[in-house]
């Protein structure tokens, strides 16, 4: 598919980027069209019944006992799959002190302890 200028503008706006011609002499339109043509290769692939893989730490990605294939002395993992693949939680404790002064020095524009942006009008 060839990217229309309108489509590019929409995407660029969502990403808060302005489209200018790139240094390689091509237009963004060309570049994106080329890239999309390449990624379009996944379109025809039959993935019926396949669960999407959000990250490698998924249920059946890991061997049921870590290290079981190993002939070296790799010790087997002490965790079950469930423990490895489920989100860990932390206790509800305040562990971060007030670091405003340090962090605010990194801000491009700040005043009275606040980060400043051009005025936002909501109504």
């Amino acid at each position, binding site marked *: 598919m060839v990217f229309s200028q309108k489509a590019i503008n929409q995407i660029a706006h969502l990403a808060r980027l302005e489209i200018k011609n790139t240094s390689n002499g091509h237009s963004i339109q060309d570049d994106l069209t080329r890239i999309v043509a390449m990624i379009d290769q996944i379109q025809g692939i039959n993935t019926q019944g396949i669960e999407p893989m959000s990250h490698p730490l998924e249920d059946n990605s890991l061997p049921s006992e870590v290290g079981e294939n190993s002939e070296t002395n790799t010790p087997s993992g002490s965790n079950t799959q469930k423990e490895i693949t489920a*989100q860990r939680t932390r206790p509800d404790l305040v562990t971060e002190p007030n*670091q405003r002064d340090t962090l605010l020095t990194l801000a491009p524009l700040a005043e009275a302890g606040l980060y400043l942006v051009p005025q936002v009008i909501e109504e």
Partner: protein
Amino acid sequence: MTTQSKWETVIGLEVHVQLLTKSKLFSGAATNYGAEPNTQACIIDLGFPGILPVLNEEAVRMAIKLGLAINAEIAPKSVFARKNYFYPDLPKGYQISQYELPIVAKGSLSFSLEDGTLKKVNITRAHLEEDAGKSLHEDFHGYSGIDLNRAGIPLIEVVSEPDLRSAKEAVAYLKTLHSLVRYLEISDGNMQEGSFRCDANVSVRPRGETKLGTRAEIKNVNSFRFVEKAINFEVERQIDLLESGKPVIQETRLYNADKDETRPMRSKEEANDYRYFPDPDLLPVVIQPDLIERVRKTLPELPHEKTARFEEAYGLSKYDAAVLTSSRELANYFETTVKASNSEPKLSANWVMGDLLGALNKANLDITQSPIQAERLGGLIKRISDKTISGKIAKTIFDALWNSKEDADTIIQKQGLQQVTDTSAIEAIIDTIIAENPSQVADYRSGKDKLFGFFVGQVMKASQGKANPEQVNEILKKKL
């Protein structure tokens, strides 16, 4: 407010409940209200390069609590997703929320309407997400100041089905949910401080029509009263539009309390495509049945259970039971009072709902700040019930209880306020009054019944209010 029987109002509510965790949903920064700007925003909340989120276990527990209390399904696996958009109060440029797989699904909330009927509202889902910061629009010479203390505080968003049919129903639903989250101690529900934020999706349709009309979303109304007014205004506005042949536009609107109207919100969200996708920095939240059971055991008696129990155990009316259980603190206060009064539920109900709440309202205090502890109030009621003092004298003792730390017995003793119940003593006083007021006696005996009150008054005055009123009445009647 017009009731157009031609039109049906359809309302769905989204409530953002701020959770009472000590630290944030994904970071260990503090969550106290009112802190100096940006003093409770750590690098994780500020979205610094390289930071990563780690989930707060208490927030998960609170979500499970809520789910159980609304009879919902607790998802064995739920997923955090990124909601992507740009706004200064959103440091990472995305909010970590839940999209396709929320932690709680398919619950319901029931409550009594004014006419006594029970209304059940289905709750589509409730999910965990992080709150955004605050923009202070005070003019910093053309700039807005951003405070990110609030960024990252855990929220549960509770989404109802569009089952509500009037502003009043909407408010009743909100009050029920509000009371529930406070009962569960997962939120302080403080609407002024923003811990309980309501968005209403309002639409109308011709009565009998099953398809939903176009809805408008009214955002961030911060009191029950305003919710009711905003919805009513919106319903009228939409009916007016449709009746004059114009369409309702799907948009977000803000309620202006001063003008009592809703106006379209300047596009913060425009045609926003949030591009939700599972957050790759977080793994799915897996909730095992034994965790759910552990949380279930920590559930307090829920509001509707308590209300039912109060009706039965204390013989209270539906209305009184509802008032007394409107907050866990008030319910506890009442029950402690009853105990201390030696089981006088009806008297206790009257005193708590009447004199106590009246005095607290006047002094702008809530039940937890009451100068009169439940035990002391109960002590007073005990003395009314065992006739040590009269109901009238009790009112003065109430004031004394309010202004001191002494208990009723001490005050009664000190001020010698015991009721006079000795029949002969009362008779003596009555005889004296009768003797001293011959013309009134004659008038009364000749038919001026109204004068009875005069004699009662005289007897009470003579006895410094301590004569038992029933006995006074009885004996007076005999003697006159």
